[in-house]
Every structure is written in structure tokens, then in C-alpha cells.
């Protein structure tokens, strides 16, 4: 009796909350006992690397569907941010950018060397590197080209395509300063070259000051050794800076007294500026945010409550605040930031929204601990030349919602 009355109470309360929809369907077909509850599942195999449910197969990295390369060795694949809760990207979903494919490097034979302006050139085997006291740190990782197809008009459909050259990772390794100090840095050594063992031998020049500050020589990510596509067996991680400076498959560190001005820091990864100029060594990824839900290509399930949530990050420090607008930037409301809020790391923001079923334009705008405010595309257009293959796009991303609840990319339009 008591059981029945409490069930009636529950139904009555639920009906009050949902306008009677549950009460009406409760009288129809009862929920069946599913087969999963009536037979044993798969036994535990002797050894296995676990995989997501087969029903989650759509959650996968994808190459750009806008800018299609005619080969897939120097190419990229993007993280499905619309499916990522929290701030950590699973290893199989971390975006890729390679210049000559993914090598398979045997850690037993791999060597990392430090030379140039040092007292004693050194080589390190992998089993030596892992003996140093380790450091694990959470950082965002973003390609300088994130968003390059979507500046003045929409080209991409989903947030995976507009912002998916972005991931959140817990890196584990050794501070670069420990290894460099062991080799003995010549006081004239002001720049450091990092070079990969892949078929592009990708290399970048990094100022010594940054290297000694927070740069890590990394062999693990998110609780396991690096994946081949992310630099196995060892890479450098340069926190908060454009992804390509964190050279993968690291084989060589060379100390010099000036930058090398390689192709990758002159003809590529530079910013077109007014009057035909190019901005060079623009490596910090500036404060940015994006709403990941609702986002392009999604469909709202009717008017009523929706959580607007997304990611914010800054290469200059911590996220201090994120504001959200549902009217195309006219009025803004400060979102809730979910702990932990870490330096140079993805930060999750959330704000409740009661959609009234009329068209809306959703935007997020982040502020970082330096006081920098995320700009609009129009703000960026005032100071940069938006021509062709433009890097370092950290502008506000608008998503429109129409009366049917369809969410669309509106970059440059709102």
C-alpha cells in the first residue's frame, strides 16, 4: 500500500513538472526488462585494451571537410569537441597534424640528443629518460591553424570542423631545463631548436627563457605512453603555444645564440598583416572560447531548458570569466566555470538557457588572467589582414538557432 501511494505521489509530481506528458505515456506500454538484464554480458578477456561502446562509433577524429589536401601525409584530423564532456580529450580523439605521416619508432633504438652551445653534448635512451623525476601537467593543445577555414563566412558545419584542432591533455615527462642543465648551457645560448625524427624532420626555434620556464620533454599522455600519432616515444610540449612548436618524435635539441628562421617560422605559421607584412614568432595561443553544445549541426529537442556549455582557454594564463550571449552579442551573462581552472588548460563553462522557441544567436566570450578579452572577427579584421590561409584565429564563434531548433555556424555573419 505504502509503495503504491509513493508511486502515485511520484507520478503526480513528475506530471506537474513535465506538463502531464509522463503521466499520459505511463498508462501505455510499460518499459520492458531489457535483454542485457536477462543474460550475462561478455566475459573479461585475459588481456585487452578497452574500446568505447559500438554505439559510440560516430565519435571519431575527422579530417577537414572544407580544406581537402590532395595527399594525407601532411594533413590533419580534428577532435569531436561536440561529444567531449569535461576538459580532457581521450587519447584516440586528440587531433593530429603531421607534416609527413606517422612514423613507428622503436623506443629501444630511439635516441634524443642535446648539443650545440652546451658544455657536453649528451644522448638519452628512452629507458634513461623515464628514470628522471617525472612531472605531470594539464594543458590545452591547439594548432595555430584552428579555425582557418572559417573567418568571414561559414564554411564548416560542426564545432569539430571549426575548432577541432584543439585537445585537453595530461602530459607526463621531464622538465627540459633538467636535461639542458645536465648538458650545461653556454651563457650565450638564447634559443633552442627542437627537431623531429619523422620524415619531415619538423623543427622550430624556441627562446631559452620559455624552455627553462615550463617546457616538458614528454613520454606519456593521459595515463599511458604517447600514441604514435602524438609523438611516440618522446616529444616536447611547449605549454600554451601553438601546437606545431611542440615537436613530435623528438630526436634533437640544439642550443644556439639566435633563431634559425626555418621555413616553419617564416613561410608557414606566420600571420598576414596589413601592407603586405607578416608577423613572425607569434607562438602564444591567445584567449579563446567556443560553445560546444548547442553547436553547429546539432538539433535542439524543442523549447525549454538547455544547458549552454563549452570550452575556454588561454596560452597567457588562466581563464578568469566566460560570458554567454543568446541574442547575437547584444546582452551577455557570466557563465559558471567548472573546477578545476588551471593555467594554460581547457576550462569548462556552463550556463542554463530556457529557449522560448524563437531564433537565437549563441556566442561565448572569454577573459583571461591578464585581463585580455576574446575579440570578435570584426575586432581582428581591424588589426590583421584576413587573406587566405590565416593562422591564430581566436575570435568569438556565433551559432544561430532557428525556430526549428537547427544550429548553424554563423561566423562573420553575426
Amino acid at each position, binding site marked *: 500500500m505504502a509503495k503504491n501511494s509513493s508511486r502515485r505521489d511520484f507520478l503526480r509530481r513528475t506530471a506537474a513538472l513535465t506538463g502531464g506528458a509522463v503521466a499520459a505515456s505511463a498508462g501505455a506500454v510499460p518499459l520492458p526488462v531489457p535483454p542485457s538484464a536477462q543474460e550475462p554480458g561478455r566475459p573479461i578477456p585475459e588481456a585487452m585494451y578497452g574500446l568505447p561502446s559500438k554505439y559510440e562509433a560516430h565519435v571519431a577524429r575527422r579530417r577537414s571537410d572544407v580544406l581537402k589536401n590532395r595527399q594525407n601525409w601532411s594533413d590533419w584530423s580534428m577532435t569531436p569537441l561536440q561529444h567531449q564532456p569535461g576538459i580532457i580529450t581521450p587519447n584516440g580523439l586528440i587531433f593530429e597534424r603531421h607534416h609527413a605521416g606517422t612514423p613507428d619508432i622503436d623506443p629501444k633504438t630511439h635516441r634524443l640528443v642535446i*648539443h650545440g652551445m652546451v658544455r657536453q653534448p649528451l644522448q638519452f635512451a628512452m629507458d634513461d629518460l623515464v628514470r628522471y623525476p617525472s612531472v605531470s601537467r594539464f594543458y590545452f593543445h591547439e594548432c595555430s591553424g584552428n579555425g582557418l577555414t572559417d573567418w568571414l563566412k561559414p564554411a564548416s558545419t560542426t564545432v569539430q570542423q571549426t575548432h577541432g584542432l584543439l585537445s585537453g591533455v595530461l602530459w607526463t615527462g621531464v622538465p627540459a631545463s633538467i636535461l639542458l642543465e645536465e648538458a650545461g648551457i653556454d651563457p650565450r645560448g638564447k634559443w633552442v631548436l627542437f627537431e623531429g625524427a619523422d620524415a619531415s624532420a619538423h623543427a622550430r626555434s624556441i627562446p631559452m627563457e620559455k624552455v627553462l620556464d615550463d617546457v616538458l620533454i614528454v613520454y606519456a599522455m593521459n595515463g599511458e605512453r604517447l600514441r604514435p600519432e602524438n609523438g611516440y616515444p618522446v616529444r616536447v610540449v611547449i605549454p600554451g603555444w601553438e601546437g606545431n612548436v611542440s615537436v613530435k618524435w623528438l630526436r634533437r635539441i640544439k642550443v644556439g645564440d639566435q633563431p634559425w628562421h626555418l621555413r616553419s617560422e617564416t613561410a608557414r605559421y606566420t600571420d598576414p598583416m596589413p*601592407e603586405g607584412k607578416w*608577423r613572425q614568432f607569434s607562438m602564444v595561443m591567445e584567449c579563446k572560447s567556443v560553445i560546444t553544445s548547442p553547436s553547429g549541426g546539432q538539433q535542439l529537442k524543442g523549447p525549454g531548458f538547455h544547458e549552454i556549455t563549452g570550452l575556454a582557454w588561454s596560452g597567457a594564463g588562466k581563464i578568469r570569466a566566460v560570458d554567454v550571449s543568446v541574442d547575437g552579442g547584444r546582452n551577455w551573462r557570466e557563465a559558471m566555470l567548472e573546477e578545476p581552472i588551471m593555467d594554460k588548460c581547457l576550462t569548462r563553462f556552463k550556463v542554463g538557457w530556457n529557449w522560448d522557441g524563437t531564433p537565437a544567436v549563441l556566442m561565448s566570450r572569454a577573459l583571461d588572467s591578464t585581463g585580455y578579452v576574446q*575579440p570578435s572577427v570584426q575586432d581582428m579584421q581591424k588589426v590583421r589582414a584576413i*587573406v587566405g590561409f590565416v593562422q591564430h584565429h581566436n575570435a568569438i564563434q556565433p551559432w544561430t538557432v532557428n525556430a526549428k531548433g537547427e544550429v548553424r555556424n554563423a561566423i562573420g555573419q553575426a
Partner: protein
Amino acid sequence: MRSAKRKLIFVLIISALWGCANMDGGIGAKSSTGIPLGGTRPHAVQPLPDKPRFGQPVSEGELAAWNIDIRTPDGLGLPAGQGSVAEGKKIYEAKCGACHGADAKGGSVYGTMVGGIGSFTGSPRVLTPGSMYPYAPILFDYIRRSMPMDRPQTMTANEVYAVSAYLLNLNGLVPADAVMDAQSMPKVQMPNRNGFILDDRPDTKAVRCMTSCK
């Protein structure tokens, strides 16, 4: 009475200790239900009696095959050897043309490597080694480390000099009889030599407006 007072003092002392434990987030921190919360701050690395040193000495000589970087403004690191425009054309056609096309004007995989000089004040900007590279030795560095894409780091220094000479000639930057080597290459005048400015961000001036912003 006396015992109650003592109990109160005891509680106060415990509370004070408890507060300290919570403040530094040490292992003594517990939830209100007494469940240990663990430390909440990074643990300092234990001081070691001596810094571990696991690097093995290696000589610059042993690293010769890896030591391929060129400091491109002055060409430091350019190796001995030389190559002519004519030799470069032959090597280009054998090793590069399949992707980059005849006369480097663009092929099955990549766009043109010729022209674009003067295009940067308009749109689109045409990026080629001729229009974009501020220093000619970038060609040597990049070709040697990354090209040809199917067999990188296999070309001889002479071959790399020759292909560089050929591409510079196609861009009108060296004459048809030019020979590139460690002395001549850094002297080639590149049109985008003064085309770069150093990072001067933040350059945008967005403000945090909350109401009636547009």
C-alpha cells in the same frame, strides 16, 4: 564543570589544528564525514642527494648525419658542395616534378612554387619560396630535411644546392648560369627580406560589455 572546560579547550585546539590541516591541503584534510581528501597541492619533488644524470656523452662528430639545421639568415651550417641551375632542372624533373609539376608551376599534389612576388598587398597572397622566404638558405634547409616527400634526407648536398639554384632561377632571383654553394646562397637577395615583424600581440582591443552592446 572543570572537565567540561577542559573538553572545550581540547575541542578548540583540535579545531585550530584542523583548520591548519585544511589550509595547506595536507594529507590531514578530511571531508565533513571524516573521509580523507588527500593533498590538494602539487607535491614537491623530494630533494635528491645528487641530481640524477643519465645522459651519455656524445661527440658532434657522431651527430654529423643528424646535424642538418641551417641558420638561414647567414647560412651557418651550409655544407661543402655546389649545384647549378641546369643540374637542378634535371634533378627536379626526376625527384620533384611528379608532385610539384613541370617548371614548379604546380602539379598533382601541390600548387605553384614560382611567382607571387608583389602579391602580398592584395588577396590572395601567393606564397612561393620566391615570394615568401626572407633568406635563400631556407630552401637548402627545407629541401634537405623534408624533400622529396617519399625519400627525405637522401639527397646529396650537391643535389640540394642544384635544386635550390633551379627554384631560385625559376623565380627570377638568380641567373641561368648561377651556382649555389655555402658562400653564394646567403648572398641571394630575397624580395621578402624585410617583410616580417616580430610578434607584437595583444593587438586587439575588445572590451567586456555586458548589456546593450550593439
